[in-house]
Each structure stands twice: as C-alpha cells, then as structure tokens.
C-alpha cells in the first residue's frame, strides 16, 4: 500500500465512523494536537469527531535528510473522538487492519505513555502503541487542555505516517517510502529536509526569532483583548514554532526556558478560556440533538 493510499484508506475508514475530514491548518506547528480542530474542539461539552493529516515541524529532529527515521517535518494522521467511545481501541485496531496490519499477524501492545504538553497546559493518559516492537501510534485520553478539564473526555489517536508507511512497505528508510508508483518520499522531501535542517540548526537568526516571539505574543494578547480567538491562536502557534526553532538552534539557555514555557502556557490558557466563553455565549450549538433524546 503506497503512502497516499494509506491516507485515502484511513480517511474512508474514519469518515465511515462519523468523523469530519478536516484539512491541515496553515500555521506551522509541532503536533497535530495543535490544530484548532483538536485543541479547541476538545474543550467544552460539545461532541466532536474529526480526522485529518497534519504536517508536524520538529526543528530539533532535523537531520539534513540523512537519518532514516528523524525528520524536520513529518506527517501525522490525527483522529479525535469526543466523547471517547467505549469501543475506541477496537475501532483503532480495525483502522490498522484496513491498512493491512491485521492483529493476528503481528504483536500489538499498548504500553503506558502519558502525554504532556506543558506549554499547552495539557496532559492525558494513554499509551504508545507498539507493532512488532515499533511505536506506531500515540493514543491519549485528554484530561486537561489549555488548563481546563476536558469533559467529556476526548480520545486522540496520532499516527506518524512515514514510520507506519515504512513498516507496511517493508523499507528501512522513510525516504524510500513509495508515495505513489514511481514517486518516493525522498523524491519529494529530501531536499526540503536538508534546507530546513541547515536553516534551523545553523542559519536561523536568533535575535530576529526572539523579536518575532515577543511581537507574536503581544499581538495574540491584543486579539484576545477583543475576544478574537482565531487570530489570537494563530499568533500563539507562531510563538510555539519560533520557540522550537530557537531551541533547536541552541539559543535558549536553561534559565530562560522556564520563562518561555510560562509565557506560552499563559497564552494557550487565555485562548482556551476565550474559546470556551465564545461557545458558551453561542449556546454550545453542536449539542443540538445530542441531549434532546438523552
């Protein structure tokens, strides 16, 4: 199964289970969780089911396109189900079967792994899912996001697509993954990986990035002051990415790290609270029909 067939199959699978197929969100971010379709939608009482592919940028993992498994940017397949259904693990295992990983033929384990995103005021309990000794999925029951209790609880499934594709295709190197017949992952992304690595690890102008961080933080605050959650959150995402580049560049001293974390946590908390307030003022419109017959 090639890379894009995998995505199409997962899309079909989760669409059949009532998920909205969302699209990647166009601001740089370190994880699919930060897409507003997960970060905001897991808050409050409204139900939500969504699946999407999200580019995830991890400047610290940049390896010039030379490491078989570590990438500046990889693609995450992200599913969020709220409230978490009772059969969510079986649904997940069925989704693996749909892309060719049948459980009888492999060794699938759920190994404790608790997720934490301090800058997002977020944590949850769950597992890393192993297939024949390889971590293929992060599965989390969100307990808190943006400093707020997640109630009802949302289940999040995050799959690193490159790694899973290399497993399914039996290739040792993500760059050898077949995107579609005649085109490999490396054909498309190896050069990009190299350039982004050189930038993040060698070239990035730390002073400029720090300045942008300060400005983005201030602008997020201005937008929040007017109750404009969406533009504020875009600037929050920018802060997060700028910090990640600074960190990869080795430009964050240990003494500064905690202060940066506090600033980002403050922003995400305010954004989360502002979102919830807006939804409440709107009367939590997605609750329609859910409680009516309950």
């Amino acid at each position, binding site marked *: 199964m090639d890379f894009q067939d995998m995505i199409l199959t997962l899309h079909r699978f989760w669409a059949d289970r009532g998920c909205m197929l969302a699209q990647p969100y166009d601001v740089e971010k370190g994880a699919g969780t930060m897409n507003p379709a997960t970060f905001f939608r897991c808050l409050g009482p409204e139900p939500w089911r969504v699946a999407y592919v999200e580019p995830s940028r991890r400047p610290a993992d940049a390896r010039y396109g030379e*490491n*078989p*498994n570590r990438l500046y940017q990889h693609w995450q397949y992200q599913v969020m189900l709220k*409230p*978490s*259904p*009772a059969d969510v*693990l*079986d649904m997940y*295992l069925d989704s693996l079967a749909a892309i060719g990983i049948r*459980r*009888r*033929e*492999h*060794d*699938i*384990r*759920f*190994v*404790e792994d*608790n997720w934490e995103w301090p800058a997002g005021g977020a944590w*949850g*309990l769950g*597992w890393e899912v192993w*297939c*024949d*000794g*390889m971590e293929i999925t992060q599965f989390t*029951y969100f*307990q808190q996001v943006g400093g707020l209790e997640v*109630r*009802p*609880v949302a*289940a999040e499934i995050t799959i690193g697509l490159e790694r899973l594709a290399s*497993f399914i295709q039996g290739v*040792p190197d993500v760059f050898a993954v077949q995107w579609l017949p005649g085109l490999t992952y490396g054909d498309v992304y190896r050069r990009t990986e190299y350039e982004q690595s050189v930038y993040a690890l060698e070239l990035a102008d730390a002073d400029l990035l720090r300045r942008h961080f300060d400005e983005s933080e201030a602008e997020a605050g201005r937008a929040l002051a007017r109750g404009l959650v969406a533009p504020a959150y875009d600037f929050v995402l920018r802060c997060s990415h700028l910090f990640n580049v600074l960190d990869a560049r080795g430009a964050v*001293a*240990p*003494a500064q790290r905690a202060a940066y974390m506090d600033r980002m946590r403050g922003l995400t908390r305010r954004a989360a609270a502002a979102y919830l307030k807006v939804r409440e003022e709107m009367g939590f419109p997605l609750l329609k029909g859910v409680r009516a017959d309950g």
Partner: protein
Amino acid sequence: MAELLLEIGTEELPAAAAPSALAQLAERLPALLADLRLEHGAATAFGTPRRLALRVAGVAERQPDLEEWVRGPSRAVGFGPDGAPSRAALGFARGQGVDPSALEIRPAGGGEYLFALRRTPGRPAGEVLAERLPALIAGIDFPRSMRWGEGDLRFGRPIRWIVALLDSDTVPFVLGELSSGRTTHGHRTLAPGPVEVASASAYEAAMATACVMADPAARAEHIRAGVAAAAAPATARIDEGLLAEVNWLVEHPTPFLGEFPKEALAVPEAVLVEVMRVQQRYFPVRSPEGRLAAQFCGVRDGNGEHLATVIAGNERVLRARFADARFFYDEDRKRTLASRVPELGRVTFAEGLGDMGAKVARLARLVSGPTAQRAAHLCKADRLTHLVDEFPELEGTMGAHYAQLDGEPADVCQAIGEHVLPRAAGGDLPQSQAGRDLALGDRLDNLAGHFLLGRVPTGSADPFGLRRQAIAVLRILRERSEPDLGQAMSAAIAGYSGVGDPAAASREVRRFLRERLRGLMIEAGHRYDLVDAVLGAEEWRVGELWARLASLEAILAEPALADDFLTVYRRCANLATKADPDAKFRLEGASAVEEEALGRALLAAPHLEGLAHARAVASLRPAVDALLDRVLIVAPEPAVRANRLALLRDVAAFAARFADLGRVVA
C-alpha cells in the same frame, strides 16, 4: 458456601501500576466480606494488563442474623413516677421495632438504662455485595488515574466490563455506565469478543479457552522458562525488574529469539544493553563465556502463528535503534570530553543551586590528588553527550569510555565511571580511592546544597532523592574510618557561599545522616538500644561506628563479662551525675583505701578496643564494688565528696568512651 468471583475488565493498565492495584483488590475484598459478616475462605488473585480479578472460596451465602442490645434512655427517663413507660421509652421501642414490654433494664456506664434487643435478619451475600462492590472498585488507587467518555469515574485506565459471580449467579450492580454480569473478554488478538463465565469456579477454564494466562506468577515463570529456552545454548540474564514489566504487558506470552548484525557490537556494550532493555524491553543474550551475543530475547503477546513476521519486525526496529545509538556515539566522539567542560555552565544543576560548571568547581575542591582532581573536572561532561542525554542511566559509564578514548589515564577513567556508584540500593560501590572520593563529594555537595535551601525531606516527600544519596554516602563509608563524615559534610557546606544558613543546614543534615545510619543499622538486624548507644557518642567516622556496634554486641554475647562491664558503668554513672564537671580526681586526695585502690586501677587501666576494653573495665569491678559498698561517697566534707564523685565520673566515662552505655537496656 459459594465461590465469589470479581473481575474488573479494563483497557491496558500501566505495567508499573497493575500489580499494586491487584494487591489492593486482594486485600480489600476479603476485608469487605469480613465487614459484611460473611465468612469466607482463601482468595486467589488473577491479573493481566486487561483484568484484575479475585476469587474467594467458601463465602457464606447469607449473613448470620444479628442480635444486639441497643441502649435507650436511662431508667429515670424511661419510666414515669407511676412505673409506666414514658414517651421517650415508647419512642425508643418503636424506633427499634420492638414491643415496649420487651424493653429490659440493664446496668451500663454506671447507671441503669433501657435496652432493646434488635434483631437484624441476615441478608443474602449477593444482595449486600451488590451494594458495596461499586465503591470497592472505585476505591482502588493508582499513581495517576483518569476519567473517560462522559463519566466521572476514575481508574488507572478505562473499565470496560465487570464480572461479578457468586457460584453461577451474577451479583448485579451498576458502576458508572457499566452493569456487572458474567461477560468477560478474551485475548485481544487470539480470542477477541465476549466470553461467558458460567460460574466462579469456571474462571480459569474460561480464561484458558480465551487464550489468557490469568495467573501472574505462572505467567512470569512461563516467560522465564521460555526466554531461557529461546536463548539456549546461550543465556539471557533475567533482569527481574524487566521481567515484572514484560509480564504485565502480555496476556499470552510467547518468547522468541531475534538477531542483529554483528557490526552493531562496535558500540559499547552498556549502550546496546540499555537500548534493548529500556527502549525495547528485550532481554540481552550472552554467550556461555559471558560475551554479549548479536541476539536478543523478546516476548510476543500472542501465539506462535506468524512469529517470523513478528521477529523480523522486531529485528528491523532494533537495527534502527542501534543505528541511532551508533549515530549518537559517532557524534559524541567528534569532540573530547575535556572540550565539553566549559559548556557545563549552560546545564542546570538544580533549581536555585546554579549550574553544573559551578558544581564541578566545588567538587574539585572537595577532593585531593591529581587523579581525583582530573576526574572531578571531567566527570559531569558526559551529560553533554547525545548518548547520556538519550540514556541518563549511562552517565559515568559513557564518561569513562569517552575519557579512555581521549587518552585520559586509566585511573582517571575509572574514577569517572565510579563516581555515580552505587546506582541503586545494593548496587556496586566504587573500588578506587579517587572514585570513592568523587562519589562521596558529589553526594555530599548535593545534600549540602539542598539542605542549605531548607529542602529537608519529609516522610512522604523527597523530590530530590536525598534519602537515597545519604544512604549511598553511608554505604560507601560502611567499612571506612576515613574521611570523617562530619568534617566532610562541613567542607561540602562550606563549598557554597552566600546560600542559605550554613549553621542550620549543618545541624539538619547531620541529624538526617544520623537518622539514616540508625535506619541502616536497625534494618541490618541490630538492637535498637545498642544502635542508640553507639550513635549516642559524638563520633562521625562511619566505619568506626559500625565497629563499635559489633564490639558492643560481642561484649553482650559474654554474659559474665557483660554483667561486670555494665555494672561498673551503671554503679558509677548513677552517682557521677552529681559530680562537678570541672572537678579533677586527685590520687593524693584519696582519703579511703578503697578510693585510692580504684583510682590507681583506673589510672593503670589500658586503653584498648572492643572486648579487651570491656575486660579492662570489668576488671575494675571489685574495686568499684568495694568503694561503693564500704565508703560513703557523698561525704560531709566538700573536698572529699568532690574527689570521690570525680573518680566515679572518670570510671563511668572510661567505660562509656565508645558508646552511651546509659542507653543499653538489660
């Protein structure tokens, strides 16, 4: 009599938390039965990542009827002047469901009261259990618990089913969104789907049919034997901690042997073992000669079908992991350890205590000699390497390895490797002088810093692991009388300037070390009173304190000697408290023959150790007895009295010069 079965079906529980959860169930369910007045027999615990279960044999099918006398109003209140029951008495009788004529007057608490005999008919076990089991399940604690779905229930991971049976009858109750029943679930892969449990006694058979090894002890032995068989003729050393973890990751273990390319062995063995153990939960395999083999033992949760696919997958993952480790190793070797030292200033040592650069500078001041100095300078630099960043447990080991590659002298490398020892309770201790000095200096510096900031560990909270560090210090010094721990601790505190209150820190940390040493001695089986006697002396050489404890025990093991020894001390010590501390005993001031005799004997007594010391003290007994039996110590003349009291004080002090004998009981 019936058998009770309770199975809590969950999503995969954390391997680290499941055994404790099962132990709680095994303790609390029998306690609940006792509380419900339900007689019961032995309990058997079952547990896997997906279920915690307990079966209790011989459970009474109903509670016995309960008869208890309930106290009501006093006789004076209960009967009117006419002898008829008052309204209070009638109300009490009604409340207890008895006829007023059945009330009895009985003495209680110094008066007389009305009593009613209340009969509570016993209820069926199923009924009372159904009321109490939900709270029992919800009350099981986890280090971290969670909510799921729309419910408010908290547990280690979501509960998905509950089986509750008394023989073949269900015990019906509701917990959150779940109802108890007889439906369990088999192995996720080998027997997915619901499984009916016919009766409590059929549980193991149902589990076996559903491909679940439910008995954790039997499952662990199955893994142990399977790993050994898979590795033969080579051997896989079973790391018990790893076995315990792996055991709680599987319901149907199938151990297997995998291989990796021999070229991977070019990376230091400690790194490979750490990758296998920590990242992959594999058991490393060694040749009969003890060399690390290019093989590993893994444990599949499943059967032998498609095992080749599973093995190939695991081998591929391990190759990638080793490639990563190789990459880190090669990167690390591009720079010498020494060149990294200046960057330690960028690494935080501990909150409020500055950076690692300052820490290393302090450490260098605490040790002496060129080997220890050089090792102190280099020993923290491996924290800046990729491999130690990835595997913190390799600190010291990698430092020693990289130092060796850099051409540092062998004794320096050894000291770097040993400065982190002992790694755990009971772990290996440093062997070289420099390694020992560094290991001590490192821990004492940690203790000093945290105590200076007032971070004294409390009963439950020890976030900086200071207890462990104190115990490491005491273990290193166990057989040694150098250095003096008190002086070494003072030097470590003096290493910080401008932090906290050194006097308070010194007082607190000394008390803390003393308490830990007391704990170690008592844990080792020594008598409380002897430990307190030894630690009652102002002495900080740890090896000396242990030697004194052994001496005291040797003395007490000889009853006649012990009697003379302790009698000399006690008879003298009793009066010695009256002595003027500044008064000196003068032989020429002795005014009684017995006084002079004891004085001469004391002056002539040799200063020996252990049993010999005790004999020297014991030999004073006739002279002590003679003086105390025949001579008035508290004589009317002040000068005479002072001289005699001073003599007794000196004898007591001589006897007790290695331990506070006043604390010895018996």
